[in-house]
């Protein structure tokens, strides 16, 4: 896992939920590798870049704003 939490870096910003938090992760990185590094299961998450859903083979770059959204929600 390579987390960099310093705000002056220009790595991709990744928003996570439950609880909501942000981490910065160096790119470029494929979606499936990002999920694996964060120990998250593909079937339980969606990866959203900007406003768009992206597939597991998509390459994420440093300038990307990424949200990893758990699919289990509500109740």
């Amino acid at each position, binding site marked *: 896992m390579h987390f960099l939490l310093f705000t002056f870096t220009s790595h991709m910003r990744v928003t996570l*939920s*439950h609880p909501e938090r942000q981490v910065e992760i160096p790119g470029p990185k494929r979606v499936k590798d990002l999920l694996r590094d964060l120990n998250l*299961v*593909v*079937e*339980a*998450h*969606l990866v*959203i870049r900007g406003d*768009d*859903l*992206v*597939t*597991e*083979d*998509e390459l994420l770059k440093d300038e990307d704003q990424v949200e990893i*959204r*758990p*699919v*289990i*929600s*509500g*109740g």
Partner: protein
Amino acid sequence: MNCKKCKIKAVIGLPRHNAAFCKACFNEFVLEQVTRAIKGERMFGRDDRILVAVSGGKDSLALWDILLKLGYKADALYVDLGIPGYSTKSREKVQQFADSVARTHEAKLLIHKVEEEEGAGIRELADLIHRPTCSTCGTIKRYQFNRAAVEQHYDVMATGHNLDDEASRLLGNVLHWQEEYLDKQGPSLPASVEGFAKKVKPLYRLSEREVAAYSVLNRIDYIVDECPMAKGSKMLLYKEVLNRLETESPGTKQAFYCGFLEKQARALQQGSGQAQPAPPSMAEKDRATLHPCATCSQPTTAEICSYCKMMARAKAGSTR
């Protein structure tokens, strides 16, 4: 990854179908799956009035959206449980969807406030009657949705249960061998006795991830937080386990749940073709065991239904 149908860039991969789709083709896939569920399970027809149980979550709002897009007559009921913060937020999401989408289809939103009728929010009620919050919530929701559907003459009540909900519930029932619950686990439950609405689950062919993707792609603003009362629930654990299995072996959830439905249907058919009498169907069992509650007239196996008993205990607890 490119769309299996039109070959442009895909937005979602579906390993269990060995496919990937662009937004347009994914939406088509979702509508096809729901249509197949509605027709295959004879859930309702074009002229039926449907009451959708909405919570502000992705499943119920996606279901309402899909039914309206398919041209069905679908109103919705939201039960405000009075959970501090969470209920206000979820109600806003439902209201926003009703105003921006449902209204254009002339569909209406009904709201039931637990604090107004039951006298307290769900957490206080659960404390008063010494029962877990989730089971208190389940009893109230089942009761109020059924009551609204029956009293307001809807032909059928639809809930947003998806494949993951059904597979995890099946896993829980099988792990504990709760055979009596297996009978009642199906995507279409008939209005077996007077006072019970027909209940259907049109999203049962879609995984939780597929329903979430549909909501994101179609800009449905839903509540992403988990219900604070559901933290640590067994169902969430079963879902996690099934998602790990699904990631390693795509198609596991579908094979598990749809395999169960096939076996259930085959057991009923085999029973009816043999010399021995067929095992009683769920509707027959209901007709033999249910009668009107002495207090409210909704069907129950006891003299007084669990909702009325719960309300009586809550009333007694609050006056102590």
